[in-house]
């Protein structure tokens, strides 16, 4: 019988230990500097094989929002399947979608794959506690001196944090942004990944729900014409956050936008091939702007500091509810895992094309 429940917090930690013990040649635990607010150890995973030295990294994270139970299980399952297939030199089949053995070998041998399956363990523990609250969203920061607990970790990243767009300064709000950008230890761990492994060039943050694949920016409509109209330019303070108007649009280079759309479409098609659910690829802002989110932050890093490499990030909003029955959760896990394999292959392809382009330039 397939499993009929979501993994506990200790279950996810055990899964990570199991992967490292069972697939020790390609899988290692990544210690992270910050324990959770309640003192839980948070660990990542790295999956990498082969001998290649000049490798790009992909970072996949989940579980930032406590109630979105499906996604940590998804990353555990994805890691398990990938390790099994690589070790057996076999392909992977997700419903009607198949990746052959050479694709799996390529993915593991050419990329450093980093995973943070459970970014917010305190929140998940509270959600799974009989006396907790199943729809808790934030972490479990007691917020000393304030009336309510918890910070919305996906409003705590350093992207237009001070603007207040789509966030709240009220601790009782579910979108409370915290006392400062990166005030929360769980989020510092995400930044640690990016700082410590500068080869990470691609990122996906898995959330629920709505069957969407979202790309930057989240604060306002995109534009590709005027580089000076950007999130760092104080001239536009106070004008951001109203999609549909002409006062402000966030700059994104056309080549990046093209990459986001084409890669997003590849991921969408891979997901759809599994059982016919067609996710929508769209800019994160949609009709309702936000700031302080992960996918925007990771993409800002090279704009803020040109010495940092570019990190292109997506948010994938899985399924149609936070906690579907586990039988349905397994189907969502399967379809989105196909999307993640496709995402990694697209990243690998981009690296290959970039290297080929660089070599061609050098030859000229």
């Amino acid at each position, binding site marked *: 019988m397939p499993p009929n429940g979501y993994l506990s917090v200790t279950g996810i930690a055990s899964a990570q230990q199991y992967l490292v013990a069972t697939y020790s040649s390609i899988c290692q635990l990544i210690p992270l500097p910050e324990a959770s607010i309640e003192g839980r150890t948070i660990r990542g995973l790295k999956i990498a094989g082969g001998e290649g030295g000049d490798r790009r990294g992909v970072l996949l994270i989940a579980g930032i929002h406590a109630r979105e139970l499906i996604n940590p299980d998804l990353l555990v399952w994805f890691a398990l399947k990938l390790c099994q297939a690589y070790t057996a030199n076999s392909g992977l089949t997700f419903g009607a979608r198949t990746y052959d053995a050479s694709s799996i070998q390529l993915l593991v041998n050419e990329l450093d794959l980093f995973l943070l399956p459970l970014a917010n363990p305190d929140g998940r523990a509270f959600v799974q506690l009989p006396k907790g609250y199943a729809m808790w969203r934030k972490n479990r920061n007691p917020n000393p001196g304030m009336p309510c607990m918890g910070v919305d970790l996906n409003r705590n990243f350093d992207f237009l944090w001070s603007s207040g767009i789509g966030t709240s300064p009220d601790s009782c709000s579910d979108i409370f942004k915290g006392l400062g950008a990166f005030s929360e230890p769980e989020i510092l761990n995400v930044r640690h990944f990016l700082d410590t492994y500068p080869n990470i060039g691609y990122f996906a943050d898995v959330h629920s729900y709505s069957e969407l694949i979202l790309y930057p920016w989240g604060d306002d409509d995109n534009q590709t014409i005027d580089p000076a109209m950007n999130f760092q330019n104080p001239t536009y303070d106070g004008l951001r956050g109203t999609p549909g108007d002409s006062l402000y649009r966030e700059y994104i280079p056309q080549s990046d936008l093209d990459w986001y759309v084409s890669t997003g479409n590849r991921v969408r098609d891979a997901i759809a091939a599994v059982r016919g659910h067609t996710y929508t690829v769209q800019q994160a802002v949609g009709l309702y702007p936000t700031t302080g989110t992960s996918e925007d932050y990771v993409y800002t890093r090279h704009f803020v500091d040109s010495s940092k490499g570019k990190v292109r990030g997506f948010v994938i909003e899985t399924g149609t509810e936070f906690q579907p029955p*586990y039988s349905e959760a397994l189907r969502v896990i399967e379809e989105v895992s196909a999307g993640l394999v496709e995402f990694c292959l697209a990243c690998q392809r981009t690296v290959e094309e970039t290297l080929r382009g660089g070599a061609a330039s050098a030859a000229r």
Partner: protein
Amino acid sequence: MESHRFFVTVVAPSRSRLQRLRSYELDLFRESAKVTEKTESVLGAVREAALRETYKPTGQTSQRQEFSIDGLLSLEEIDRLVEDGYQVLVQERDLKRSRAVTEGIEFQDWLKGMEE
């Protein structure tokens, strides 16, 4: 224990009213915000024999856009939005969609199930 909340869809008559929802700082799901094209029959006034005015379909239709966003709100929050002119469609109690406590398992059981 949290007070009970409800999964809802908040309907706004315009894009600006949808965006104004941000000022309430509620648990609204940004990714669910959408616009829907609505087709409505146009009613025309018809004066009947008793000089009473009634309205009947004219055969014409009009198009309008409806903006909506899903969320998880308390009764007090719902009341506030309704008082401010939003339409709030209540779908379900929060715990009706919860499978957090009843279906949690440890890794060995999970793995065994996955391998069967």
